[in-house]
């Protein structure tokens, strides 16, 4: 940017604690073409003032030296003008205070060290912020939306034709999009089609209704916008969102379609009951699974498999092969309601028949308590908590079941015509990649993502249930999480919305979640690439493929703009228009470093803008002091901190560098999966750099805080400040 205007707000203690004229001078020295200061910049008048000056002076960029970038976002937004925010309020006057020995706040004029007042240091900080902001805008280039050369496809591929897939297809088509539906079986409908009935999916949630998929199938088959492939699988997917090439295998023949986004609804398989021999399965004919029992009920054959005799008594064993470390460690969420439903089949077919349901915890979640109640009043249905300890052949073709720890407090022996095992769900992604992606990082969802929840294509973000690590691919139904039919329908609608949203983002040329506002994207200067493969390995979203030489091949619409590749690159050849190696380097170089022997240290902090920066802002609202030594540069993610930043700051003479990011590990909060974790791993490279400069390793430290840990964030900064006092001055000062 060439014509940069600096606007300094004098309100909210800025004018009270800072010398505004000095700041104006600094802005001019740094190269700003226009410099103004004014009170209450965020008022209507303040904004109008800036707008007028933009026009009058022909500015193409403005630095708003006022409050944090997190507030008044909408106020300081000007069409076709680059905006940077220097946080003089939260970052300077509300967070830096002279603290006396007893923790009391002193006057700014108080002497800080010999010959230097706190005010001097506060001004030095504020000036650095103004300089950095101007330097940043000098290196800033307007992002241009990414527009692929080929025409983008807006067709949605739905993998799986069960209740979730059918719903996703219909809902996408009804929203106006073309759909390709691929079903592995010869018929649509999935598991639900094989059911006799299920609990209704709307108010009052207590009656049994015929399978809802019958209607969904006819809607799909009569919808012109939906093309259905039955008996088909996905042979290969290459490309990227908006430009996927999908090869579909239909009866041995391959067809290729252009696809924009994908809903993964390939469902589940029932757990392999042959592993449940201790519950009699496989050895005793009259022990069946709930899946088999459903089929018996649908076919109207409620008879004993062993001899065809009518069933007069049935015992359901809940959690069969579930919630068990030797089988499925999780709960499948649907089986309690399913067994209650099947109990109803039996009672309706034969009012004399008796049903026993042995459970550990009856899990009829939420509104499905209504359905549970309809069975509780039935005297022919006997429900008890208990542990099945033995299943064996009884007399007259009956099955003998021994149950302990029942509510009756005694050991029960029951002889029933049939035992039904309530077996669980296994998502198909637990066993096969399904997608068959031609991605450098593998054909399926990343293994470490799948491991989080037993092979489910699930998200680790409570707030963002559709965030998988493969952009443009959204899971729905029982492949996503164990769920009921009603939930699968809701889930499929959500996944369809996300798929449509991805297509809109590609068309507009910006990123998808979480940086939906971002039009910039990484650009690779491959001439200097050494094929080290760090970027292609570390990209959390698998956005980069590789050519045979090991050069990265970016697929921009897969990219989430986290900057992990930017942070990883030792050659510094990856840059964004609005975030680059040069930009941050220039910002660091723009700050003023006192000469050797000044007596006070200068520290740099790279702070994650998603968690740590908000925590520091909140500390500022509460006027909690952080050391005046720190210059803070907010970054999109710690993963986007390149070692060059450390080198630049150390060469400049900074005495210590703190990287403050979000928590990693089991409860990780990084919106880009593992930015802070990667940054931590890269500390080895940092150590190497420090060694080359002959500086102590401890001068660069990484800490993590959660967004709500306001006190902790402040404490970490103060502690680091104290630690660095233990070292000599950085010898590079003044070079």
């Amino acid at each position, binding site marked *: 940017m060439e014509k940069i205007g600096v606007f300094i707000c004098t309100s909210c203690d800025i004018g009270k604690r800072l010398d505004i004229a000095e700041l104006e001078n600094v802005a001019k020295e740094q190269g700003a073409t226009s410099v103004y200061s004014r009170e209450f910049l965020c008022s209507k008048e303040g904004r109008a003032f800036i707008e007028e000056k933009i026009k009058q002076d022909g500015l193409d960029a403005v630095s708003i030296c006022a409050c944090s970038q997190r507030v008044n*976002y909408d106020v300081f937004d000007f069409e076709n003008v680059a905006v940077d925010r220097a946080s003089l309020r939260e970052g300077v006057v509300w967070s830096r205070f002279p603290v006396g020995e007893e923790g009391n706040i002193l006057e700014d004029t108080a002497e800080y060290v010999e010959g230097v007042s706190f005010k001097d240091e506060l001004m030095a900080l504020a000036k650095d912020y103004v300089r950095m902001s101007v330097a940043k805008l000098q290196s800033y280039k307007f992002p241009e939306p990414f527009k692929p050369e080929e025409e983008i496809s807006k067709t949605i591929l739905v993998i799986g034709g069960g209740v979730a897939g059918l719903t996703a297809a219909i809902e996408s088509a009804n929203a106006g999009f073309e759909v390709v539906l691929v079903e592995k079986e010869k018929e649509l409908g999935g598991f639900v089609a094989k059911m006799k009935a299920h609990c209704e999916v709307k108010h009052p949630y207590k009656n049994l209704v015929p399978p809802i998929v019958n209607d969904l199938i006819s809607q799909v088959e009569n919808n012109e916008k939906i093309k259905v492939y039955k008996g088909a699988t996905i042979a290969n997917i290459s490309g990227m969102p908006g430009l996927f090439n999908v090869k579909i295998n239909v009866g041995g023949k391959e067809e290729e379609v252009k696809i924009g986004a994908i809903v993964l609804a390939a469902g589940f398989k029932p757990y392999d009951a042959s592993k449940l021999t201790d519950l009699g399965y496989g050895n005793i004919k009259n022990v069946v699974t709930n899946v088999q029992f459903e089929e018996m009920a649908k076919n109207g054959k409620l008879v004993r498999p062993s001899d065809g005799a009518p069933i007069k008594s049935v015992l359901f064993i809940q959690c069969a092969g579930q919630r068990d470390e030797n089988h499925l460690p999780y709960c499948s969420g649907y089986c309690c309601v399913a067994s209650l439903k099947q109990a109803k089949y039996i009672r309706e077919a034969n009012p004399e028949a008796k049903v026993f349901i042995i459970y550990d915890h009856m899990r009829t979640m*939420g509104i499905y308590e209504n359905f549970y109640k309809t069975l509780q009043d039935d005297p022919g249905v006997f429900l008890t908590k208990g542990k099945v300890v033995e299943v064996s052949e009884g007399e007259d073709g009956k099955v003998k079941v021994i149950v302990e720890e029942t509510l009756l407090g005694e050991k029960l022996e029951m002889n029933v015509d049939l035992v039904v095992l309530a077996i669980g769900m296994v998502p198909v992604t637990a066993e096969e990649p399904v997608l068959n992606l031609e991605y450098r990082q593998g054909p399926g969802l990343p293994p470490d993502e799948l491991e989080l929840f037993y092979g489910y294509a699930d998200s680790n973000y*409570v707030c963002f249930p559709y965030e998988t690590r493969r952009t443009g691919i959204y899971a729905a139904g029982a492949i996503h999480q164990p769920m009921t039919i009603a939930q699968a329908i809701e889930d499929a609608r*959500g996944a*369809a*919305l996300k798929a449509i949203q991805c297509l*809109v983002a590609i068309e507009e040329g910006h990123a998808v979640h979480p940086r939906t506002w971002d039009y910039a994207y990484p650009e690779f200067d491959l001439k200097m690439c050494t094929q080290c493969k760090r970027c292609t390995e570390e990209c959390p979203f698998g956005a980069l493929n590789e050519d045979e030489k090991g050069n990265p091949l970016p697929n921009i619409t897969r990219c989430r703009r986290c900057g992990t590749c930017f942070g990883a690159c030792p050659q510094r050849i990856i840059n964004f228009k609005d975030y680059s190696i040069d930009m941050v380097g220039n910002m660091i170089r723009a700050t003023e470093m006192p000469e050797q022997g000044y007596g006070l240290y200068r520290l740099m902090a790279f702070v994650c803008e998603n968690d740590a920066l908000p925590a520091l802002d909140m500390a500022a609202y509460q006027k909690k002091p952080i050391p005046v030594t720190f210059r803070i540069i907010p970054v999109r993610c710690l993963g986007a901190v390149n070692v060059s930043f450390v080198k630049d700051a150390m060469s400049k003479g900074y005495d210590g560098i703190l990287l403050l990011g979000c928590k990693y590990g089991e409860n990780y909060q990084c919106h880009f999966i593992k930015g802070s974790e990667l940054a931590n791993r890269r500390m080895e490279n940092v150590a190497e750099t420090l060694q080359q400069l002959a500086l102590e390793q401890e001068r660069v430290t990484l800490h993590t805080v959660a967004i709500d840990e306001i006190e902790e964030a402040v404490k970490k900064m103060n502690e680091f400040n104290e630690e660095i006092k233990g070292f000599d001055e950085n010898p590079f000062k003044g070079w």
Partner: protein
Amino acid sequence: MKSLPILVVGGGISGVTAAVEAAEVGAEVILIEKEPSLGGRVAQLRYYFPKLCPPTCGLEINYRRIKTNPRIKVYTMAEVTEISGEPGNYKVKINIKPRYVNDNCTACGECEKVCEGERVSEFDFGLRKTKAIYLPYPMAFPMKYVLDKEALAEGDLERIMSACKYNAIDPDMKEETLELEVGAIIWATGWKPYDATKLDNLGYGKYVNVITNMQMERLASPWGPTGGKILRPSDQTPPKKVAFVQCAGSRDENHLPYCSYICCLASLKHSWYLAEQDPETESYIFYIDLRTPGRYEKFYKRVEKEARIHLIKGKVAKIEEDSETKDLIVTAEDILSGKRVNERVNMVVLALGMQPSIAGMNISGLKVDENGFVISENGIIACGCAKMPLDVMSSNETATGAALKAIQIIKLFKS
């Protein structure tokens, strides 16, 4: 013709999600919230489950999505009073209560410093007071103060008005009525804790150390009344033995007939909070069924390992107070052993069920069931806990799904 906007009613996690998801496909969205800040129930929680992370982390990203999306317009302190019309073309009356603080507010906090009047903080479920002029919570959206005129002390108004350098305080602000024309309505008004005083035998309101699960969240929150230390109300000491009463109000024909979905998990999470504070703390969880469906089983196992929990299958019959120590004696029947249990504890947490926020209200044009849950009909789509009891993740699935139904109704993409 351009599509009419989508109205999202409720600015909790479901409403915020529905609003941003719809706006990010291109729809115009009006988001209204009855409280002075967005965030809803999740903003009051310390952590989510199963991932123990602060909800404000996700709110921050969502707020940023709102701030950077010109298609979303937010009104706080606003409620729907009447709906008429049909899908694609609704007329909705909105009542906006006066905030008495205008957009000039910079959140500088000078007013709060000089204000003497105080009010009970509903955000903290009565566990502390705020000044009459206050910021709803540290990460409020919008980041603006709000004035409770009733709570002003004598001379406060003059003091706060002269402390404000930005003419932000406007005591003459009036209640307003807006009439909006919208194409579809997403109803996401969420839930409120069931009224604990209706549960006579459990001693809430009578015994000071009987608290609710949402109060527990505030105690554990680093921004809460105790700065994140879980202290029992009678003497501000950390409890060593805590009883959790599950299904307090839920699964009970006399109160809430349904299961509230989250309370078992919330109590497990609270046991974890207690163990984090002091690993020796004992939690006694009195339950009917322990409901940790799906992947939440993993969380149950984690808490079993990391906290000292005792699970007792049985409904609590009564709670009595030792008037001297203010300890509580919980009486229940252990159904498994058939024995009567009398457990002396330092604090009791009622795992209160969720009731739809609008239960008992009559909103013209909105269809509800016998419990006050909203039934989706025509162009009105219910999501989150306004629809049925749900956890956060499923709420957001329904909210995202609701955004899809809404864009269909307003015909955002004409085929």
